[in-house]
């Protein structure tokens, strides 16, 4: 019998409102979600449905206007900026659509960066970065700058960076959005592999073939759960 899994992310009636001039935009409109440790979840929805906002809430980049976001049972609204920074650094790994590597740093240095922020010693940092790059198949290009890498390669480096501080949650916002099909598949296979080793993966996508990798799909529309 399968053991009851621990809840790692919980959203309770989350509302996010943006004020754009005189207009008020309800990006999220009372969403409640629960995600367990080790799940692979895809959040799907048309553009403007609020799926990226939802991911940013989970990633502690943003806090809700109303309702609560709990990471490991602790509400992000009650955390100080310092605590939010620490959670982003230690518990969460981000993978972005446009890779978002720092252009002046080599692949390995990009992977080192989150460890630098965590004050990991230089030797340990370099070794771990190299290992992570090897894990995503980029071991031989660790000294390349992002501009010398293809999109798929950059995204692999970005995944290695997301893993730098050994986070329990990986958040990916359209990770294959800027990649061709085969590169996209390779990236998703890496994600699947990470999930198999126990990491919680939350992927935002509008691509059904990406969502196929997930074991659960959450659909949202107009800032609400789409249960149709």
């Amino acid at each position, binding site marked *: 019998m399968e053991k009851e899994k621990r809840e790692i992310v919980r959203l309770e009636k989350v509302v996010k409102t943006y004020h754009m001039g005189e207009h008020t935009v309800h990006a999220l409109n009372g969403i409640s979600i629960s995600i367990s440790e080790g799940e692979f979840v895809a959040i799907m929805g048309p553009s403007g449905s609020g799926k990226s906002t939802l991911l940013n809430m989970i990633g502690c980049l943003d806090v809700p206007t109303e309702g609560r976001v709990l990471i490991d049972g602790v509400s992000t609204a009650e955390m100080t900026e310092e605590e939010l920074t620490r959670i982003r650094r230690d518990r969460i790994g981000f993978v972005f659509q446009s890779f*978002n590597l*720092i252009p*002046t740093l080599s692949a390995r240095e990009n992977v080192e960066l*989150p460890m630098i922020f965590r004050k990991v010693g230089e030797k340990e940092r370099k070794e771990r970065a190299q290992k992570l790059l090897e894990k995503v198949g980029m071991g031989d290009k660790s000294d390349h700058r992002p501009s010398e890498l293809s999109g798929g390669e950059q995204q692999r480096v970005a995944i290695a960076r997301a893993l730098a501080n050994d986070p329990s949650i990986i958040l990916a916002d359209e990770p294959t959005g800027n990649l061709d099909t085969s590169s996209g598949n390779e990236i998703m296979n890496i994600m699947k592999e990470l999930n198999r080793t126990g990491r919680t993966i939350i992927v935002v996508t509008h691509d059904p073939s990406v969502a196929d990798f997930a074991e659960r799909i959450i659909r949202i529309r107009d800032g609400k759960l789409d249960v149709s």
Partner: protein
Amino acid sequence: MYLEIARRNLKRQRMRSVLAIVGMIIGVMAISSIGIFGNSLKMSTLEVFGGVATEIIVYPSYQDGYSSIDPHTALKISKIPGIQDFIAVKSRTDYITVRKERVFGTVYGIDDPGQLVKISRGSLVLSSSNCLAGAVLAEKYGLRVGSKISINGYSLRVSGILKEKGRSFDINPDRGIIVSEQTFNRLYGGDYSFIVVYAGSVTGVKKVSDQIDSVVNRRGTVVKIWEMKDFLESINRAFTYISRFLMAIAGVSLLVAGVSILNIMLMSTIERTKEIGIMKAIGASRSEILTIFLLEAILLGVTGSILGGVLSIAGGYAIDMIILKSAKYVFVSKTFLYIAQGIGFGLITAVVSGLYPAWKASNLEPIDALRYE
């Protein structure tokens, strides 16, 4: 590693960084070079005035009707304790006949002028029949040791040629002659024109001049007492102010350099908004972003300031050569003080200019910064 990140960011906009550094170099160079020049100006001026800080000159108080100092008063002054050297000077301007030409010059009657002048040829010893000729007079009329001159028909043999003394507050014998007091008395007679005394030490100057005042001026002002030390101090002060004023003007160029750092750092903050967002998303704290950006400004400042400081030696040398026609005051220990000062101001300017952009960068909201394209 932050330093390395900062360095690479500066390399990314190489031209821009180089221009900011050039601005810094000019600013620091201007301040330090002018500081060095101001110091040279001060030192050369003090040198012109002899710089004997223990010298006290006692004049008759002309305002009170005294035109000379009588031998009795002179004797009283000479007995004041703390005086190391006492030179009573008689002087008169008159026609001196040199090689059948009548030249207008000053005739000094001093028995032992060794403290006030230096000899270039011959001897300083004066008797009733000889004289010492001033450097300018000797050169103009080709006087040598052994030449003859005469005053009012009284013939004197030149026994020594003086070194050029330049402007001075005691005696100016360059265009005149010095004779013994006895010879002077035979020519003109009369009391002392002024008295030069030297205190044993700089700290003793005040005491000696107070003593002279209390002994001689007991019943009304007979003499005026003038301390060289006061004069030197006021020159010193005046030149320090001039120097500071010039440095403040030069400081404007450093201010401009600071503004240019502020400008490029602000541009950099805006251009790298997204990068700041990424770093925050992957766990950079405010203080880490602040450090990275501040380090960039400091790197610009350190590079510019040190280069500017070193180059200011050349700058000071050039200004000194152009204005003072001599660079002998450039290589003095104070020069390094001005260089250090310039570098210090440069660093402060860089840090102050870098603070606001760095603070701004560190305060960006990660979500807004990430969305920035």
